[in-house]
């Protein structure tokens, strides 16, 4: 088999320029072409792309099985919401108890700054989690991050002075317009791509492929794993912030394990470690979710098959199992779509 190299600098910059130009043009013109419903679905897909590529960074590129996205997305969403809501609105909204003075007074109505702070806080939490987890070899990351998701939810429900309890927060300023979501998604993709194909990215892949060998070559595996985890958490926090703004209201029940499970299917379908695969799979999965919606509808019939509430998740978990059994490499394996195109051209 031919050896596949990453893109050369010239190819890389022309590719980035091309994608940016096409995508921004698409973002600019799509409100004139599509209906509001399609735009909402597309916006949702862009947010999921941010989440999927950052989740792929820790799971696919670094090979550390983690189940964290719902926790960090929740942190990002809540931090953005608390930062963007003015003190007057917050003192009205917190009905169970008075909000803590800090929570009440903090007010940064600048979207980019709020998103940045959300991301940084999420990655700070990731650092504190990484410390106990990456010290031991083995797969504790999965169980700790899964438990972390539950802890975040319990925290949000049980501390009404911070999060308004299970009632959640609403009337979050909707700064996340369709154009802005697309733009942030594009920036995130470019940033994550640069990380994956940088020195750190190579170290991450070395950790995934053979941790002992990487260690012997002088890679500080603890540091690399922690950096990957924190980066992943940063983008998930940002994605959570955008999600909060685009939905407008958040509550602890939105950030259950279901969110993580969907992202897991996406990155497995796309091929663990492939960024373009994750992007492609996001479109396929969210599109498929819309297409399979009738399965959950009890009044839907197709021959002897009829919809039962919850049937859609049976189908999706079966898809995940079959993918793992028969197509473990997903759509693109751990390569990028342009690697395949380059191979074709060279032949």
């Amino acid at each position, binding site marked *: 088999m031919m050896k596949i190299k990453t893109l050369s600098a010239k190819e890389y910059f022309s590719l980035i320029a091309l994608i940016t130009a096409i995508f921004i043009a698409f973002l600019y013109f799509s409100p004139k072409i599509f209906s509001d419903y399609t735009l909402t679905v597309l916006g949702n897909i862009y947010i999921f792309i941010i989440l999927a590529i950052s989740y792929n960074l820790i799971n696919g590129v670094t090979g550390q099985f983690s189940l964290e996205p719902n926790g960090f997305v929740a942190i990002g969403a809540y931090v953005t919401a608390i930062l963007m809501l003015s003190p007057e609105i917050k003192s009205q909204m917190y009905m169970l108890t008075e909000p803590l003075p800090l929570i009440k007074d903090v007010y940064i109505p600048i979207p980019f700054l709020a998103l940045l702070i959300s991301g940084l806080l999420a990655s700070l939490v990731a650092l504190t989690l990484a410390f106990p987890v990456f010290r031991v070899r083995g797969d504790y990351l999965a169980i700790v991050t899964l438990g972390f998701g539950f802890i975040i939810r319990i925290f949000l429900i049980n501390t009404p002075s911070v999060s308004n309890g299970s009632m959640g927060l609403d009337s979050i300023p909707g700064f996340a317009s369709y154009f802005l979501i697309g733009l942030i998604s594009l920036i995130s993709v470019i940033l994550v791509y640069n990380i994956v194909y940088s020195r750190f990215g190579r170290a991450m892949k070395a950790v995934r492929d053979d941790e002992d060998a990487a260690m012997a070559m002088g890679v500080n595996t603890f540091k690399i794993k922690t950096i990957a985890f924190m980066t992943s958490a940063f983008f998930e926090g940002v994605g959570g912030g955008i999600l909060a703004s685009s939905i407008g209201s958040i509550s602890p029940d939105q950030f259950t394990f279901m969110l993580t499970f969907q992202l897991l299917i996406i990155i497995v379908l796309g091929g663990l470690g492939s960024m373009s695969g994750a992007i492609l799979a996001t479109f396929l999965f969210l599109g498929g979710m819309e297409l399979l919606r009738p399965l959950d509808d009890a009044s839907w019939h197709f021959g002897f098959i009829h919809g039962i509430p919850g049937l859609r998740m049976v189908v*999706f*978990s079966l898809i995940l199992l079959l993918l*793992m*059994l028969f197509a*473990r490499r997903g759509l693109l394996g751990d390569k990028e779509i342009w690697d395949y195109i380059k191979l074709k051209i060279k032949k």
Partner: protein
Amino acid sequence: MDISFILQQIVNGFSLGSMYALIAIGYTLVYGVLRLINFAHGDIMMVGAFMAFIFLGILTGWKFDNISMPIFSTAVFFSIIVTSIVGVLTYLVAYKPLLEKGAPKISLLITAIGISFFLESVFNVIANQYLGGNYQSFYFPKFFSKIIHIGNITIPILTIIVPIMTLALLGIVLFILYKTKVGIAIRAIAFDMHTVKLMGADANKIIAFVFILGSALAAIGGVSYAMAYPSIDPYMGVLVGLKAFAAAVVGGIGSVTGAVIGGFILGFVEVAIPGFFPELGGWKDAFAFILLIFVLLFKPTGIMGIDFERQRF
């Protein structure tokens, strides 16, 4: 704080802890032979509880009135059998092909999550479609809810039976592991699977037996859990399973005795902290993970102190 209150908490802690212990044994056994966190194990427990419910329904004609001991035991017996079959099927259908292909561990873990979600959604559909709702009350013979008074302490009989049963089952598991041929094989596989295969033992059969053993214990755990909170739902296994895994790590993963000790510790913590500090009651479900993080920070090998890269059980 009077002494009877403390005693009451201890009894409750024992009872809750033994349910975690029953499930933790399954985690630790599978982790021992395959080095795999079997995320589906909590859901196997849920299958056990649901199967007991379904068999009780069939035996009483879905009326659930005057359940006698023989009927109850028959239902639990069949539930254990069906659950063991489901458990061993997860190995044969999903894990074994992956192991044979030499798939990386992350594939096994993702498959485990997939099985877990699959079982939950299948039973979600079954419960909604055929049992008339996600949440079902669990019925059992009146004998178990009889209350004994010792001084000021009130104890339902169930609270005594479950820990005694757990210790008896622990004895059986230890007997199997240390005194029978299968047990020797299991420990050998945990030590070095490739050598066991070279010695001519059928590793697949032995691993399948581990899954059967773990699932049977999980079924018993599930039935006791369903009796203690007399209700079942398709997602009951998620949190309990995670906590039981945390208990297994606290006790020292790879050690069966450690799993039971870890289970009891977790049970005590979950009963005692809300008992003495009622304002922390809402945080009950978080204790297991906080405990887990502390154990990973200070003593990653757990209480039994087994270095799981080298020695097991």
